[in-house]
């Protein structure tokens, strides 16, 4: 970075919130995905005005700006792939207001998502999006990546809850989009455009999010299936029976084995799949619905069905699902976590395709995920120091995306495109579709300052490169 640019930055940001030393820069060179890119400077802004000034300077000096929250992204969203500045947004956390009457929360971007859950519930309200990183991740990161979690099936993803934003644009202006009303059809829906834009169209400095009444009660059950195809049929039968579970989670045989060898808890090693189904709502209604779901599972060939009678039993059922991530990381140090998503009718077909990919490349590939909404998480466990295997992983990843698209699905259900999936964008959207998106980016960000290197592939890039 030019000295002049640094001198200008020093006028805007005090020294104790601006880091140039190597150690601190390396600390913002990663997220929870793959890859390491060293920024030239790390800045911790405290308000929208500072960010606006910094972005204006970035435009003057043509320096890339990479906003980030807690860095839990699995797609490389905040990685400073072109150097430049990282804006660590975690200090912007002064505002967390619950507006009970309007059923809203007004939040600063650095607020931790779990804190919103907690505050909302204290007021008898509910903020449904619940990514597994919610204890760590910031709401700003959540909404720019449009993250989701197990409740997406019934309640939708983050974008369904954001109705207003304060944003610093890529050229440094501060604007407001949407507002406090649930109904709002004035002009283009910029709120929706910015949510999920992965920080390429703006830096969120405040968000207004919609809350809903807290469900009175919930019940959970688990079903074991000896045949994967039966579990697929059970999913479709439940969903077409008029019942909408609040969560419908799937673990495949490889997952079951991994969890069982990590923390033995009597999971069925011979089962091809386990479904975990949770229903929330009025206690009387869910009593009837849960029994109906259990009957459907039995009718579709479940070998075992167990409805949790107590909170302890409910926790036991969920702990198997929650152990998946730690369990599979015991199999190797490098985890490539995908979130290819298919229409739910295609889940059995997608599982079949994933099976073939596992066998073709001889990789450690396990599948779990939010089956109810077709959002699967194929995870490949490997060691990035094993170059030969990593080359196979690259091919396998490409095939996973091809399978998802061919089955009418999408590259990403909740992790975002980031650096890892950009080469496949044209496969899903076509050249014209991608170009339309690029035009928006170019119009908003003429100097390509904000989070460059994400979503759109570099010229000639057709598949992911994990090792060189």
């Amino acid at each position, binding site marked *: 970075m030019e000295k002049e640019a640094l001198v200008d930055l020093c006028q805007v940001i005090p020294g104790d919130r601006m880091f140039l030393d190597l*150690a601190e820069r*390396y600390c913002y060179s*990663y997220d*929870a995905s793959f890859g390491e890119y060293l920024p030239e400077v790390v800045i*911790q802004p405290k308000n929208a005005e500072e960010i606006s000034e910094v972005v204006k300077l970035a435009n003057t000096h043509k320096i890339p700006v990479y906003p980030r929250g807690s*860095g839990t992204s699995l797609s490389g969203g905040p990685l400073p792939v072109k150097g430049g500045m990282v804006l660590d947004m975690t200090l912007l956390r002064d505002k967390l207001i619950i507006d009970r009457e309007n059923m809203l929360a007004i939040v600063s971007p650095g607020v*931790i998502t779990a804190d919103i859950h907690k505050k909302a519930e204290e007021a008898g309200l509910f903020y449904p999006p619940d990514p597994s990183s919610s204890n*760590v991740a910031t709401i700003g990161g959540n909404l720019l990546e449009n993250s989701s979690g197990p409740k997406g099936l019934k309640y939708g993803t983050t974008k369904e809850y954001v109705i207003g934003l304060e944003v610093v644009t890529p050229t440094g202006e501060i604007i407001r989009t949407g507002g406090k009303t649930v109904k709002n059809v004035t002009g283009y829906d910029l709120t929706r455009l910015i949510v999920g834009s992965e920080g390429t169209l703006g830096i969120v400095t405040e968000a207004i999010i919609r809350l809903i009444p807290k469900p009175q009660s919930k019940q959970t059950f688990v079903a074991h299936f000896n045949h994967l195809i039966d579990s697929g049929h059970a999913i479709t039968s439940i969903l077409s029976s008029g019942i909408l579970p609040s969560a419908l989670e799937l673990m495949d045989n490889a997952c079951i084995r991994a969890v069982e060898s990590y923390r033995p808890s009597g999971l069925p090693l011979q089962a091809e799949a386990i479904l975990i189904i949770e229903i929330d709502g009025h206690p009387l209604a869910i009593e009837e619905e849960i029994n109906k779901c259990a009957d459907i599972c039995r009718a579709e060939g479940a070998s075992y069905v167990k409805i949790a009678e107590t909170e302890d039993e409910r926790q036991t059922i969920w702990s198997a699902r929650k152990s998946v991530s730690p369990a599979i990381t*015991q199999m190797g140090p490098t985890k490539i976590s995908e979130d290819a998503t298919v229409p739910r009718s295609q889940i059995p077909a997608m599982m079949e395709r994933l099976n073939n990919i596992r066998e073709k490349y001889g990789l450690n590939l396990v599948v779990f995920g939010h089956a109810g909404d077709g959002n699967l998480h194929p995870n490949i466990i490997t060691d990035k120091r094993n170059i030969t295997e990593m080359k196979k992983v690259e091919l396998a990843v490409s095939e996973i995306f091809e399978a998802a698209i061919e089955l009418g699905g999408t590259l990403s259900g909740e992790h975002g495109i980031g650096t890892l999936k950009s080469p496949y964008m044209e496969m899903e959207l076509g050249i014209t579709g991608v170009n339309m998106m690029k035009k928006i980016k170019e119009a908003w960000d003429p100097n390509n300052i904000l989070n460059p290197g994400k979503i759109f592939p570099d010229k000639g890039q057709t598949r992911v490169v994990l090792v060189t």
Partner: protein
Amino acid sequence: MNLPAKPNESNAAVQNLHSDAYDWTNQCVKCGYCLPACPTYESMGVESASPRGRINLVKMAAEGKIDFQKDLAEPIDLCLGCRACETACPVGVPYGHILEAAKEAIENSPSANQKNKMTKIKKLALVHLFPYPKRMNRIGSAVQLYQKTGLSRLIRSSNVLQKVSPALAHLEQALPAIEPSSKRIRTGTIMPAKGETKLKVAFFTGCIMDSMMSRINRLTIELLTLAGCEVILPENQNCCGALHSHQGEIKQAKALAKRNIQAFMQTDADVIVNNAGGCGASLLEYGHLLADDHEWAGAARVFSEKSKDISQILHQLGPLPFTEEWQGIVSYQDSCHLRNVQKVQKEPRLLLQSIPGVTYVEMEGFDRCCASGGIYNLLHFDESMKILDEKMKNLKETKATTVVTVNPGCQMQMSIGIQREGAANQMKSLHLVEILAKVCGLD
């Protein structure tokens, strides 16, 4: 044992970082689940003060991308070593081991030539003081004399220490009244159980505990005998080596461990009991510390398996024969090394709740380090006080009149917190053993 590391050995420390520790850092999936558990990340707000950041920096150093001294030393030094991140980590990264390997490598790295003054003082204490019980006792006696003669009052009223070092001034005030050495129970003694002998235990006296807090040691032994233990105090035991391994002096930590193993293995005790969370964690990890030493590995493992905290033994043999009531609200501050390394959480609480008259109230953030961190509060006074002040807010919410800990460092730190709040008239900080001894009529 005081010889400086030879050049080839210093390379060995760096080498070690390249093998074992490097593999451990590769286990980290950077999910960030450790961030909310880390007190220094919370107080400093930068990634380099988080476990994920530190692990990555160790990795970068091992890969040669950053310098051990210039880049790695400070973030590592600012870690409290509370190991709460290990409990939060979903994939079980052995952070404590990474931390120790990093400290050792930093101490021995080729660029380790510009040590600051504090490091020299630190080293002097580690090498020439803590390992020698007699020297520690002489200091203990000197402090006792200082307290008894009224010199301490003079010094306090003159405010001279405050001008030299606020950290030392705080510590001086937090020091408990030291008992005369005549009251100290000597090593080599065997104390019979009162009544039936239920268990034979060997007591680990510790270095600071033995010299500065001999009253707590004496009460520990009396409580143990009251609960039905025959208590052996093995001769030739010495400092556990925790402070040494925390400062990267692994070689010396190993030498101290071996001396302790030898001293304790000569007894036929069923259990080795300690009353300081930090020492206990170190004793529990002798097995790991000496895993590569063929001659000692087996004995070290046995030693570690036998090592227990005082609260575990008293709870196991309880209920204690209480003779008095304790009035007021009591809260408990976990010792990080007891909670996160030894995984002892419920026993101290159950013991406190069993005291007649006690209203037990849990404080918000009880599992958060108090930032005493061995000698962290001396080395990083401002950072330590920031964390402590947050803790005191939570403690005040409980309206407790007594806060209990199971580690001398935590106990003094809580005393410092009480002084800073100006609450010395309403609240006191006690070791678990002190409150239990009082209600059992021992004193």
